[in-house]
């Protein structure tokens, strides 16, 4: 089969292709998207369970007051506002603008801490605990799920921030930064329906 090698053959030269690619061109993006879809599914079913349990119960919320609005609403505000700096450093990441991304990530870490602190206050104002009734259990489960996301995202941000102040800065890091931003969006967007179910459903579906 020697001659097959020496005669010229058509090759597809891909050496010019970029290796720092964003969004749908980066496989990390697809990976994160996959994880988001899975987690969204878990949230959706948890909320569905909430409504199912409501449909099976005579009084709602059973013998307790709905969660207090204050802290949950404050956190919702923080979440929504946090999208502004997030969007900013996401765009700068695409330009490879190191200093902006550094600032953005530090902000992300601070915001993370803030939401976690407020979340702690939220948990103390749910007016039920998980052992009391199925209602209490599902409320705590949903909140717990979201807290887990807050925590993981926070750790992720911290690690990435450290990397951005280390000699490891290169194209991939900026891709990571963009992923970090989109994951935060996911955490925020899933919170919106949760906020309405946890805080408003007991008021609207009251019986």
């Amino acid at each position, binding site marked *: 089969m020697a001659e097959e090698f*020496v005669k*010229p053959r058509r090759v*597809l030269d891909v050496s010019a292709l970029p290796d720092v690619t964003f969004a749908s061109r980066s*496989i990390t993006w697809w990976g994160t998207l*996959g994880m988001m879809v899975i987690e969204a599914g878990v949230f959706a079913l948890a909320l569905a369970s909430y409504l199912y*349990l409501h449909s099976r119960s005579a009084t709602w919320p*059973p013998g307790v007051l709905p969660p207090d609005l204050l802290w949950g609403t404050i956190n919702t505000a923080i979440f929504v506002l946090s999208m502004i700096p997030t969007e900013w450093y996401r765009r700068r990441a695409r330009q490879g603008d190191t200093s902006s991304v550094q600032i953005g990530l530090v902000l992300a870490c601070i915001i993370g801490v803030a939401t976690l602190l407020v979340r702690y206050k939220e948990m103390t104002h749910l007016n039920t605990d998980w052992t009391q009734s199925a209602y209490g259990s599902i409320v705590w*489960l949903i909140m717990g799920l979201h807290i887990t996301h807050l925590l993981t995202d926070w*750790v992720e941000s911290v690690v990435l921030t450290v990397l951005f102040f280390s000699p490891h800065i290169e194209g991939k890091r900026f891709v990571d930064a963009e992923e970090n931003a989109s994951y935060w969006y996911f955490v925020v967007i899933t919170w919106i329906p949760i906020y309405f179910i946890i805080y408003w459903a007991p008021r609207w579906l009251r019986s």
Partner: protein
Amino acid sequence: MSEQKAQLVLEVASRESSERRAENLTRVWAEPAGVWGWFKAVHHTTIGKRYIVTAFAFFLAAGLLAGAMRLQLAFPEAHIMSPDMYNQVFTMHGTVMMFLFAVPMMFEALSVYLVPLMVGTRNIAFPRLNAFSYYLFLFGGLTLFAFFFVNSGPDRGWFAYVPLSGPDYTPGKRADMWAQLITFTEVSALAVAVEVVVTVFKLRAPGMSLNRIPVFVWGQVVTAFMVIFAMPGVVIASTMLLLDRTASTQFYNPAVGGDVLLYQHLFWWFGHPEVYIIFIPGTAIVSTIIATFSRRHVFGYMALVLSLIATGFIAFGLWVHHMFATGIPQMSESFFTAASMMIAIPAGTQIFCWIATVATGKVVLRTPMLWVLGFFFVFILGGMTGIFVASVPVDLQVHDTYFVVAHFHYVLIGGAVFPMFGAFAYWFPKITGRMMSERLGVWSFWLFTIGFNITFFPMHILGLRGMPRRVYTYPAGAGWTVLNQIESCGYVLLFLGVLVFLVNVWRSLRTGPIASSNPWGAGGLEWAADSPPKPYNFLDLPTVNGREALWDAAPDQPIVAGLHEDVREMLTTRLMDAEPEGRDEFPEPTIWPFVAAVVTTALFIGSIFRPVAVSIGAIPLAIALIGWFWPTRQESARRRERDIWQKNS
């Protein structure tokens, strides 16, 4: 380099240069050596092989448990096993077969090994996650058996209905172990699902546009999506069960607003798609083998792909057909009857397309094809009994009887195990580099097929004669004895069939004739790689020009060049048309996924005994994950000076 495109050029490659490249690639892609190296491996063929062996070992174990059941049921009012032991045995059998054999084998194992080869890339996307998923699967299975051997095996059936599995009626750790096993297997399945989707969406060989993706790969992608959408159901269901048991939540406690049917809805939201997660890879195998051994492109490619997708969708509208007897409103029952019968249309469509392929092709009867023919016979029977149980009134009679046991063994073994044995015979040369013995192959086929029907056909009749399932024994006067004894005899043949298969594997590995790279003259890209594949899969990444890449290749089919070969670089292509789009790097081997899996296992098992184990275990887990993702200085430095940024971003 302003123009960020791939262009076709003519190149003269000398034999020497390609040999040098081969050596170099071998060095770059070689799996690390030594004992530690074994735990660092991340190549999809390595992990894929481990998945196959492990899942099959679980099949053997669960098969032996089945033997124990058949022994106990061979005699009325037998005392060979205590009721408690029998309940553990049938629960272990069902759980292991479904969660540790069927899904891992049909979905994880086969796609991890085959999909990257079939789409023409050098590894699976996220190979470290892949290694992690394997270890989690392995450890989950091992702990389950450990619990079983200390008489703490789960004993509430493979779907552990509440309240029976709840804190009030199942003291001890049995149900907790079951729930955690589910967590282990679902995490690994979900990880592989994401890897498969990304591999197929982004790493296909140039030219493999959507309408050229091999049916097998389509099957695994549809399955991956089903895993992604179905698993959350069982995640929630088993988590709630675990919390009810360990953290005294009240999800399933009717006394304080909990609901026992919530569990069933959540479980079957997953549980029904689950059975198609097991079956679709089976059909994917059948489509592949049928085409190769009919020597023609499979008939009705579009129809087959659409049937797979349709099955994937309809599967999520069927779960209530497992709950017809719970007394849910008649209206909704009718809906689920309709949906359950509708699913027969895509199934039928596939059957008909395959028959058309066979009837218009030149059939070659080799062992893989035999297993496929066996599949037709067994699966169609099972599918038909599926139609029986899809009808609410009929199901109210046969639900939870041996009729259902017959149904699901016909579809599970027909739809998964027969194709699996076919797949083994078919891809064995590719994986091991040696051919299997045809003679022994034929023997194991006939032993298994005959044994199977003797074992399971009488179960239809038993069910119609009123024998409920999950009974550890039955009264002598019930008229069930003879049929049960026939079944138990059939088991012996089944056993021999599997044994002959094992002997065949064992002998072929040593003395089997050396296999060429494409012994069946098949058309799939995996046959372009050596048998067994080199650690880099392909010396020259291929391009594709048709559905059966090798059959349809142009005489001067181009190959891909220009990737850096001093690192594990990959080519990414566009989702729709598979046009080259970018380059990226596969990560190197590392110990961290293994470490992370060990920690996760400790965390899961610990949480059975002390819920706080979750928070404690979180810290080492975080450390392991950071180690996993932390880049080395050389990597960062090298990339920094090579980086080509995507334009117009």
